[in-house]
């Protein structure tokens, strides 16, 4: 079980030590491929808990870990082409940082101890901040600073929340532990006022990391300035891990009898995130920032889903998978378009489908998928959440959900169609920045996965969504 944690760390050390620019990207690919292999083995033979139960693989962790690993593998293949084009840039920190991130993400997914979970999530922030600055210009520096400061503050508040939760378990008869299973077993023995205070701080802390409104301020800047590959990993992987952290906290809060309050907060923040994303996506001229607001929206949908509980929670786990894969398509395709046109503003980028015969249409297909058009996976996951809302009697919430989705579809569609359609500007461009198998293949593969999951979800996967949702009840 420790293999997918330790291996990327060892490879990161190797990547930092290697002297040559061209030697490092293969190390990244090796790390990603072996990690995916390790995760595949987890599916074939479920691992036993380790380190006194601190690390264990449960249903939500398994889902998040699998999506993260697949997305990381696609990005690692993509990086072989991307870093070759950016050979002028020192990629030591980039490759090393990504491998450290992979290890930390694995720990988050496996961690059953809330203290360890916190430490690993903080490492994901620290290892990605320098990567946002990969382009070494004033704008990416500003984005990196905001990301680092806002996320560090959020995470510090999450630590305070974790301490509150520890304190709630310290009363007479309490478990004196931060293991999720101990806390859930203790349930009503926990001190309720402290559980509620803990939930508020943890929601603010991990909500910042997840990018829920109004704590999302770092997101448009970071996703806008970072390389597309990092945008894909952040919006599909790291935010899903923060979501997993919230799932664990909700699990404990529900067991302690504070579930009602926790759910209502999640629903409120989810709807607020969708509303805010709708406002900022209409008329957005920067297509990478637009994707960032799309990420705010989808994190909102996830929060809404687990807030509603039941069917909607099962839909939320499906949506976490669907969103993670689709965000990979969108960010990688957007990165290709950005590179080929030298701009990410809609007034300068037109006719992407002509100049990039694969990435351009993929960007369009990714847009259709993420906004919930059939037959792609997000359509079915959003439908499940909507079903949960209406069957649960939350008509107003369901109505708002639909209204926001409609506004976002129109707003995002205007920007995306403007980028993809038309004739490219006459200016000279370097055909070396066009589509190549290494840069267009990975988003294409992810898109195929999104389509397949829309047409057919394996029964075992469906059962996993349900068993993950049953943990948080509702």
């Amino acid at each position, binding site marked *: 079980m420790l293999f997918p944690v330790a291996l990327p760390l060892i490879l990161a050390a190797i990547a930092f030590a290697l002297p040559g620019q061209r030697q490092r990207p293969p190390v990244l690919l090796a790390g990603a491929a072996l990690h995916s292999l390790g995760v595949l083995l987890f599916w074939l033979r479920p691992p036993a808990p380790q380190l006194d139960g601190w690390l264990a693989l449960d249903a939500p962790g398994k889902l998040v870990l699998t999506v993260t690993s697949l997305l990381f593998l696609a990005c690692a293949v993509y990086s072989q082409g991307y870093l070759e084009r950016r050979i002028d840039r020192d990629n030591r920190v980039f490759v090393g940082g990504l491998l450290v991130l992979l290890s930390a993400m694995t720990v988050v997914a496996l961690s059953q101890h809330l203290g*360890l979970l916190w430490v690993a999530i*903080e490492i994901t922030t620290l290892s990605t901040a320098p990567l946002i600055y990969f382009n070494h210009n004033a*704008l990416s520096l500003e984005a990196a600073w905001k990301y680092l400061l806002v996320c560090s503050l959020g995470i510090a508040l999450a630590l305070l929340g974790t301490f*509150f939760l520890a304190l709630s378990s310290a009363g007479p008869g309490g478990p004196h532990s931060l293991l999720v299973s101990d806390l859930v077993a203790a349930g009503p023995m926990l001190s309720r006022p*402290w559980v509620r205070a803990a939930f508020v701080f943890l929601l603010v802390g991990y909500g910042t990391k997840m990018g829920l409104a109004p704590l999302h301020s770092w997101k448009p800047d970071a996703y806008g300035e970072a390389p597309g590959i990092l945008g894909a990993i952040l919006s599909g992987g790291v935010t899903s891990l923060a979501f997993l952290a919230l799932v664990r906290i909700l699990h404990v809060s529900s067991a302690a009898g504070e579930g009602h309050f926790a759910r209502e907060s999640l629903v409120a923040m989810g709807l607020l995130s969708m509303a805010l994303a709708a406002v900022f996506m209409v008329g957005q001229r920067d297509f990478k920032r637009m994707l960032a607001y799309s990420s705010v929206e989808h994190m909102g949908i996830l929060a809404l889903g687990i807030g509603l509980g039941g069917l909607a929670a099962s839909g939320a786990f499906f949506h976490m998978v669907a969103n993670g894969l689709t965000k990979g398509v969108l960010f990688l395709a957007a990165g290709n378009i950005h590179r080929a046109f030298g701009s990410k503003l809609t007034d300068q980028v037109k006719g992407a489908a002509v100049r990039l015969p694969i990435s351009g249409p993929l960007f369009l297909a990714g847009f259709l998928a993420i906004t919930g058009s059939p037959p792609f996976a997000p359509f079915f996951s959003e439908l499940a959440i909507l079903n949960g809302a209406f069957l649960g009697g939350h008509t107003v919430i369901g109505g708002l959900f639909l209204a926001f989705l409609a506004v976002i579809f129109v707003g995002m569609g205007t920007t995306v169609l403007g980028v993809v359609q038309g004739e490219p500007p006459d200016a000279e461009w370097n055909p070396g920045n066009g589509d190549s198998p290494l840069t267009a293949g990975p988003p294409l593969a992810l898109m195929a996965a999104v389509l397949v999951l829309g047409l057919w979800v394996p029964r075992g996967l469906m059962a996993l969504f349900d068993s993950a949702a049953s943990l948080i009840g509702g």
Partner: protein
Amino acid sequence: MARWTDMVFVLVVVLDFFVLASSRLQAAIRAVAAQGALLALLPLILATGESDVTHVALLAVGALLVKGVAIPWMMAWATREAAIRREVEPIVGFVPSLVLGAAGVALAFAFASELPLPTGGKHMLLVPTSLSTVWTGLLLVVSRRKAVAQVLGFLILENGVFVFGVLLGDFMPVMVEAGVLLDLFAAVFVMGIVMFHINREFSSLDTGKLSALKD
């Protein structure tokens, strides 16, 4: 003994106010270092007969090294490199900062009296001190323009969280505590690197220049 403990808590809060009112970065850095060193005493003076001696000693030494020595040294180095002498350059003035800080202390006491400790209470000043220090840190981060001053705010916030953590010393695993301290150290280290680049890019550590990205 109890009077000494009171003294430590009161001093921690006094240092919060000192940093809020301080216009000189060097002085503020020294104050944060002093606060970090004071915090290292807490695990020792709050230890009871049941506490694990090595655990308490490790926590105290670790806190002293990270919060009292290594981080302030790094911050002082960063200000020297960037040739900043003075000027915290607040967005919110010093007097309003102090008023807000005082309001935070009042709120912290109110919160602490609303929520009694399930453990029967180690010390009545602990929770209010922790929360008002957290509040001071947040206030500093949002109301100062210099990157160094913002990082100082982050450190004070972490100090506040640490005070609360001392309450849990009995059953927080050593591994987690070590991880928290290491993460803090790494966070300031990464922030230091980014500050170095900000200084090179803009010839200044004024985060007011970092305002090109918006909608």
